[in-house]
């Protein structure tokens, strides 16, 4: 394979790779750095690629290893991340000034509840153990098969099935307990609260009926609601959506809050 061919192939899923890495690291900078390092490593090792898996699977395994190297030494986030960050945000006037400026000026500064649901998942899923987090995103959001994930993670298919089953059940439980969109007893309503701040003229209820997961919350099972949550993530590119700049600003804020929080609570 020539460098030009490799570059052309790489570009066909570069966006997907970058989105995957953003959802793993919660950092634009880290995601971009790993994409670049992945490309360089791919170029240097292309002669070792034997075609046992697809090129995409091979490249995702290189990227996953780089993400693992970066994240292995870092603590996982608590599942109450959104509560902790909300408290910090309320006392951070600069955050809201910047956010409202993005809201006014940027073409990617809209606030949409659906996009915030994806943002929330990115934060909460970082409470899963690293290997489970990798496996879950690869399967549920990026559509890799169990056999392909086994190659990417260098694990047996049985172990991948274990990771997928456990991580999925764990997140179903967390969201059922926390998310007021799917459970009236849910304690987190941050997406509708922020909608009130950014879109004061909009009625949250009218927005919620447009979102299948919220509209069907009372009739669908927990598993089906989780699948609908995953569908939202599958359909959104966190770098290209209409709310990208606003949500990435929010994500960077949460990442910094989490790093400080984990350091203080060591």
């Amino acid at each position, binding site marked *: 394979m020539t460098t030009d061919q490799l570059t052309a192939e790489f570009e066909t899923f570069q966006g997907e790779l970058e989105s995957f890495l953003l959802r793993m690291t919660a950092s634009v900078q880290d995601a971009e750095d790993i994409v670049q390092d992945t490309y360089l490593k791919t170029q240097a090792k292309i002669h070792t690629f034997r075609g046992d898996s697809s090129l995409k699977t091979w490249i995702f395994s290189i990227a996953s290893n780089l993400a693992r190297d970066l994240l292995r030494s870092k603590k996982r986030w608590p599942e109450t991340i959104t509560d902790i960050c909300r408290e910090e945000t309320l006392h951070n006037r600069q955050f809201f000034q910047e956010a409202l400026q993005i809201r006014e000026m940027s073409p990617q500064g809209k606030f949409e509840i659906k996009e915030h649901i994806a943002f929330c998942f990115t934060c909460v899923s970082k409470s899963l153990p690293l290997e489970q987090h990798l496996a879950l995103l690869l399967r549920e959001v990026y559509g890799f*098969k169990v056999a392909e994930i086994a190659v990417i993670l260098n694990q047996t*298919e049985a*172990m991948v*099935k*274990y990771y997928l*089953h456990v991580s999925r*059940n*764990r997140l179903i439980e967390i969201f059922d307990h926390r998310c007021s969109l799917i459970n009236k007893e849910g304690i987190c309503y941050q997406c509708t609260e922020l909608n009130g701040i950014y879109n004061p003229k909009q009625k949250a209820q009218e927005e919620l009926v447009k979102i299948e997961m919220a509209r069907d919350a009372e009739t669908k099972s927990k598993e089906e609601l989780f699948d609908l949550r995953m569908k939202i993530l599958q359909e959104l590119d966190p770098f290209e959506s209409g709310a990208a700049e606003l949500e990435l600003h929010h994500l960077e804020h949460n990442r910094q809050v989490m790093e400080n929080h984990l350091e203080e609570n060591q």
Partner: protein
Amino acid sequence: MKEQANSKSQEGRATTIRKTFSRETSVQTTIFADPAIVWALLTHESDFPRWNSTVTSVKGAIKEGGTIELKSTLDEKRTFKLTIKEFVPEKRLVWGDSQGSRVYTIDKGTGGGTHFTMSEKIGGPLFPLFASYIPPFDESFERFAADLKKEAESMQNSKS
């Protein structure tokens, strides 16, 4: 004696052999799942209470030479402090204390099934003095094996 206990036990039904200075309970079942899945379930301590109705919490690390603190529905007020005595991936796990050991074995059986056994022998010179205070393990063992079988098979059959 252990072989005798196993040969008499029926699929998923616990058997107990009582002697003056010891008591041994065992259960065996065939699980239609990869041994790696069964092993993963047995060695991810924090996940135990989710699938296993006989365990309320496990703290520590189920690994070679590790120690755990286990709370079970058999005696919810008591915390069992246990050492991992043997750790042979996908084959054999043994934990216990000075009074006894719990042995788990996993064998790739024929016909696509994994043969799982669990046995625990407690005893010693003072066993007759405290034997009457130790509840029977049979029901708990049967539930453990049934929960493990259900969870492992559910994982095995998940979409790929």
